[in-house]
């Protein structure tokens, strides 16, 4: 509750603050201060179970350690994102304060989507997090690609929202309780009535769209590629993670008991997402676009949690969102500083910036899922959950083969950094567009260290679920 209210308030503060902030760098500090405040208050709620604000939400929002832990992860990753990329947000355009305001509104949506207990609040949460993103995608106003991406995102997004509303309507009409509350929709194990089944499929499509699962992923590469890189980083991590949390909560709480009836659909979507994401990523030359496809591929792995729907799945999903967000934010933070976004642009990075290259390697190894990184633990949990589920073991084998494929494109960057020579012709642009500040470098170390620590002791995070 704290997170929802405070992010909304702080979003408004940032919005009006834009009038008063004299310097371009002021909003960043306000945003960071606000985010720390939100993070701490959310932590207080997680520890004590009592929010600062006693509001009767008529059971439409539900807070438990799972939601609050995820919100804490999301807030923490955003904080890291602000700290690493604050200067880059300033470079996107003139309205810096508004960008931060919009990011806070997205966070508000993230918190609602993570803690909904009614289809209406789910819809509200998803919309509150989507609409500011449409604007942020198009925030590079003079760039045609950015405009195109924003329009595309908006059109596709509203289309999927329509489908979601339709699904909600079907489910509302189909159950005799006349209620939007998740608890009332939960039908028990019988065969689903046709109206509910149709509603479920529509909701599945809409959620798949939000988490960019195949075959509803087509918007992702273009939008991620077209949006200013800072915001791609945010979109591909925290927002996608929130989508997954909403996804698993919806399907676990509302439709968990009828899982056998819809599991096949998830299997098809998961397999397709893994296949398309990984195979397409192999052929990308631009790292930014490759990371867009890699985010689809990672979504395929996260879908295993929706497929499995057990305790391991929930623990694992939190861990996965944290591991994936940390690594992706880290690699994007480095990418933003590069002058050339192609894989060749990374050539010889290790020679000039050895420490940065080592950090990037940790991020990439984590995305690949090599032990000693958080990425391994999260993939391990996903596999554990899926095998525990016991159905369709071929899907698990398919998933790990695709993980082996993913090593191919992640390691291409490692190869470029360490084993290839940089362009030494006179007049060739420098690898990095600007000098890296010590603070930035130390934050990258910190992120890499965090990934390794989580890779050794994932229980540091998962114990919060049982707090």
């Amino acid at each position, binding site marked *: 509750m704290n997170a929802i209210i405070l992010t909304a308030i702080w979003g408004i503060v940032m919005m009006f603050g834009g009038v008063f902030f004299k310097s371009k760098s002021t909003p960043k500090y306000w945003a960071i201060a606000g985010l720390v405040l939100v993070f701490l208050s959310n932590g207080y709620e997680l520890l004590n179970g009592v929010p600062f604000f006693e509001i009767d939400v008529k059971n439409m929002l539900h807070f438990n350690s799972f939601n609050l832990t995820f919100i804490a992860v999301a807030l923490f990753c955003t904080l890291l994102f602000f700290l690493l990329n604050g200067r880059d947000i300033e470079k996107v355009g003139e309205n810096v304060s508004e960008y931060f305001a919009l990011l806070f509104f997205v966070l508000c949506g993230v918190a609602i989507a993570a803690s909904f207990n009614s289809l209406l609040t789910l819809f509200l949460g998803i919309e509150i997090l989507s609409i500011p993103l449409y604007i942020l995608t198009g925030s590079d106003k003079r760039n045609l690609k950015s405009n195109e991406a924003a329009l595309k995102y908006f059109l596709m997004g509203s289309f999927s929202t329509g489908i979601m509303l339709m699904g909600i309507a079907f489910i509302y009409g189909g159950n005799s309780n006349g209620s939007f509350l998740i608890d009332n929709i939960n039908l028990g194990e019988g065969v689903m009535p046709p109206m509910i089944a149709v509603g479920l499929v529509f909701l599945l499509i809409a959620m798949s769209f939000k988490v960019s699962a195949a075959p509803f992923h087509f918007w992702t590469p273009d939008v991620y590629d077209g949006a200013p890189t800072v915001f791609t980083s945010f979109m591909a991590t925290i927002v996608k993670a929130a989508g997954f949390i909403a996804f698993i909560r919806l399907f676990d709480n509302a439709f968990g008991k009828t899982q056998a009836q819809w599991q096949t659909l998830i299997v098809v979507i998961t397999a397709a997402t893994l296949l398309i994401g990984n195979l397409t990523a192999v052929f990308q030359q631009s790292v930014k676009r490759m990371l867009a496809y890699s985010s689809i591929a990672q979504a395929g792995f996260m879908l295993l949690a929706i497929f499995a729907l057990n305790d391991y799945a929930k623990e694992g999903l939190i861990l996965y969102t944290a591991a994936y967000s940390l690594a992706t934010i880290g690699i994007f933070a480095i990418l933003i500083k590069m002058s050339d976004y192609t894989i060749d642009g990374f050539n010889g990075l290790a020679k000039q910036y050895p420490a940065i290259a080592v950090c990037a390697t940790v991020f990439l*190894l984590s995305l*690949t899922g*090599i*032990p*000693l990184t958080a990425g*391994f633990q999260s993939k*391990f949990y996903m*596999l*554990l959950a899926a*095998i*525990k589920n016991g159905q369709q*073991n071929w899907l*698990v*084998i398919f998933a*790990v*083969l695709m*993980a*082996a494929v993913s*090593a*191919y494109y992640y*390691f291409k960057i490692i*190869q470029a950094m*360490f*084993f290839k020579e940089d362009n030494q012709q006179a007049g060739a642009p420098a690898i990095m567009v600007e000098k890296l500040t010590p603070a930035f470098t130390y934050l990258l170390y910190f992120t890499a260290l965090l990934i390794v620590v989580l890779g050794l*002791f*994932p*229980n540091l995070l998962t114990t919060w679920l049982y707090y």
Partner: protein
Amino acid sequence: MFGNYITIPHLLIFVPLIAGLIAFLIKDESKVKAWSLFAAIVTLGVSVAGIYFSKNNDLSGLTFGYEWLKYLGASFAVSLDGVGRILTLLTGLSFPIIFIATNNSSYKNPHLFYGLMLLSLAGLMGVFVATDCLLFYFFWELALIPVYFLCSRWGGEKRIQATFKFFIYTFAGSLLMLIGIIYTYLQTGPTAFAPHSFALSAFQNVLLQPAQQQWLFWLFFVAFAIKMPIFPFHTWQPDTYEQSPTAVTMVLSGIMVKMGLFGVIRWLLPIFPAAVLQYDNIVIGLCVIGIIYASLIAIRQDDLKRLVAYSSIAHIGLMCASLFSAKQLAIEGVMIQMFNHGINIIGLWIVIELIERQLGIRKISQLGGIANKAPILTISLVVIALANIALPLTNSFIGEFLMFAGLYQFNVWYTVVAGISIILAAIYTLNMVQKVFYGEVNTLTVATQEIAFSEKAILAVIIVAIFLVGLFPQPLLQLTNESVAFLLTKLK
């Protein structure tokens, strides 16, 4: 040792690990070389101590588990059993030899090179001492990462592609094994804190239906088969051996391939005995095909490194076939042959390295007449080559004799076909000796000089080891008695 908290297996992992991390900071080439050699010798000392302590049957001092992921049932459990002892000894012995033998090679960024070498040593030791399956998997993958960087950074011309192929192959195999591990884990019984357990004992006592064992067996086997490598999973191996810097090739061929055999001994045979007995013919069949196939290709090789690589495939194939025959003699043979193969092949690589460093070539057709110029090098090579074809008095004879004897008990025909490889091995090895070392000195080899003292000394160590094991194999055989007996009870 040091109470219950730090035992010998811990030291085996942490001494090279910490030394490796320190090595990254030593920028001076000669200092970092001395430091790594020192660390490797200390590790050797620890592994010898492991054998010494285990002789008193005081296993309590060699086993200790820290809690790691309590609610998953994984612990940092390490221990030294018979097969672990022999392989940690081999690993401990190999690294000082490798460091001394390649002391005269100079690498760009030596601190990174030696740091990564020591990290791979730590990873290998971890594989051999882990008695927790998740921990084993951690080390299994981690041993690969430093080697990947070593090969790709300091290797030959086509190093990036070759190493990458190697990496993807083994990574895919490992992930399949991970599925097998998780599935088996979910069948284990509850412990005090966790619903299931990753402990070795839990895995060995897990009750699996034959139908479950059948597909789990293949998930594990593919991972191990790629590492060994067994035909048809061997295609990464010659390229990688050829392209890697020689020091790394020694690690790969001398020790890393033993990871596959070790995996079979430690994890595959005891956990899936029913499937092993069911599929033994298929596996041994693949091994025998591989033995003949690799031997025939070895005859046609012109590159010394590729020749040794293919010869290694044949030797490993024989060891794997013997393991799956599940006969006492054969398994005893494998235990001792794992050690011998490591020593012999490292010896061969050292000779090749010495030739290549002096002359810059390793094509058999271009070499010749080295015997006139470097007699001691030649004598060393001849001894190692004879050990490679398992002549009596050399160490390999004991191992191969036991393996063939055991395999014979299993099936005569496999033995007959695999036995052809002895002749083929003689053909390619002696042919190589003849063409490279005898004959006329040509313009390329005229500059050959006799090797330096440190190199002579290291070759002498290897030759002594060859004869010592060849004449007195009993101590090594005794080391693994319990392991062999345990495997046989499981495979009844």
